[in-house]
């Protein structure tokens, strides 16, 4: 059965929890009390909220608030701390291995956010590690990791995969999961060169190994775009991550760069919606001129199709279906430099040919027309 996709924006209960995690004073206290009155921690806490509980503990403890949930929340904090420490340790080992081969590395998402923004090992629970390498070193990295016991379930050493995927998941004998990226986002296909994102990277140390992380503006962009992709799991933590990035006293967000990259990567709708949510609901201190400027930028038709398609499908597309064709078409729009209706559609056929590794145009057309027909018949039957 197809899992239902969740909105990237929180439910009332989730928003109350986030406010209890992030705000202070009376707002925090009221939100926490209200959340507790609506939610039974034994039965009602879904995965997205569950992952916020170590942060909730930290915020309650800072105030300090004492109630009957605190020991269990503290237990969650201890567990998340232990789990993350093990992951950081393992990540240090992977980074050392890559550096031995002369591979440049950058850590993304949880590890970077924990060290740079949260400055805490417990409050951002993680299940895997995300490392990015330059596009030009992606093949070398995959080969090197495979030589050292890491395995992937997909064939990665073809040009199509490298150009049309942002990452590959590798697993080792200890069942440790590594998401190896060469692009931070899908939206980078065909645009990113080796210096993009790397030029303003900041230094950090993970388990004694020096590496890089995205600069705060790029980290915020990645957090919002990734967070606004609907998922079967409620991805509400993008809100906490973004809020912490924006409000951190030690981090300076280069807002001009955020706008520039949002335009360049055609993710202006995501950035608009994300910042709007953070400003309206959490009073996030976003500079007024930047906020107004972003809200006035008109996204292109292709951006709108891509965003709406992304909203519908999230990360799960089942094959074969009309939805699949739409998602492939949306993927194509991410890459194409073709302008104009005719040129774009000829380009789409070429894209499909490359994607299907050389099958002729006629077979591709027949295949997808048959999928469309089947999908149409199914819809008619359902309607009848």
């Amino acid at each position, binding site marked *: 059965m197809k899992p239902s996709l969740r909105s990237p924006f929180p439910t009332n209960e989730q928003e109350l929890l986030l406010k209890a995690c992030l705000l202070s004073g009376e707002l925090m206290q009221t939100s926490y009390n209200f959340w507790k009155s609506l939610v039974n921690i034994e039965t009602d*806490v879904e995965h997205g909220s569950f992952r916020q509980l170590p942060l909730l503990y930290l915020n309650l403890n800072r105030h300090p608030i004492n109630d009957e949930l605190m*020991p*269990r929340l503290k237990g*969650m904090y201890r*567990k998340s701390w*232990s789990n993350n*420490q093990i992951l950081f340790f393992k990540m240090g080992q992977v980074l050392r291995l890559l550096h031995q081969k002369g591979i440049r590395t950058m850590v993304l998402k949880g590890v970077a956010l924990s060290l740079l923004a949260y400055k805490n090992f417990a409050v951002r629970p993680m299940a895997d590690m995300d490392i990015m390498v330059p596009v030009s070193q992606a093949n070398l990295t995959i080969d090197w990791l495979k030589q050292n016991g890491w395995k992937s379930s997909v064939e990665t050493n073809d040009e199509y995969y490298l150009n049309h995927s942002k990452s590959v998941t590798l697993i080792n004998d200890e069942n440790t999961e590594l998401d190896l990226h060469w692009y931070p986002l899908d939206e980078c296909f065909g645009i990113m060169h080796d210096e993009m994102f790397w030029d303003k990277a900041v230094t950090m140390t993970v388990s004694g190994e020096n590496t890089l992380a995205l600069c705060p503006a790029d980290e915020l962009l990645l957090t919002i775009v990734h967070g606004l992709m609907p998922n079967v799991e409620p991805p509400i933590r993008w809100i906490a991550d973004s809020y912490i990035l924006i409000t951190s006293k030690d981090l300076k967000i280069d807002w001009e760069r955020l706008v520039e990259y949002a335009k360049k990567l055609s993710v202006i709708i995501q950035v608009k919606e994300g910042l709007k949510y953070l400003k309206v609901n959490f009073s996030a201190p976003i500079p007024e001129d930047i906020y107004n400027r972003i809200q006035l930028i008109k996204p292109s038709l292709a951006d709108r199709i891509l965003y709406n398609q992304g909203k519908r499908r999230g990360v799960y597309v089942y094959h074969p279906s009309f939805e699949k064709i739409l998602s492939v078409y949306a993927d194509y729009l991410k890459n194409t430099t073709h302008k104009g209706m005719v040129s774009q559609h000829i380009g789409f056929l070429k894209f499909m040919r490359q994607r299907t590794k050389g099958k002729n145009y006629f077979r591709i057309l027949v295949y997808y027309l048959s999928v469309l027909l089947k999908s149409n018949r199914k819809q008619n039957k359902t309607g009848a």
Partner: protein
Amino acid sequence: MELHNRLKVNTPNVVHETIDGETILLDLNTGNYYSLDGTGAVIWEFIDKTGNYEKAIEIMTAANSAESDIIDSTVKQFTEELLTEKLMVIAENEITSPDVTELEKKLKEIALNFKAPAVCKYTDMQDLLLLDPIHEVDEKGWPESRETQANE
């Protein structure tokens, strides 16, 4: 084990954090998890900063001379355990002492209502990480499982 007045945390193998009066520790080589209670947490912090367990004893016995013998022996025993578990090791270089006025105050406070410091050790991290921190733990929270409590 011979005690030494120049100790340091066994980094990078041992990671630690003190939160709400409790120090949690993880030995990344063995996977052992440790928890130090209020007294142990303060002494741990003091040794971490100064490397000097004897100074901790000195401050505490001065604050509570009536219990100086018990303070002296239990803190020594506690420090020995930290060394046996390889949570602390002997430092090669001198440790430059930062300002520990706040910690000294805390040592005096715990000395006045002295409870022997204890090291709680949990050895099976893989099992511990599988423990549901909401439904399978006792009122103290993870890593104390309901099952362990029932067996005790």
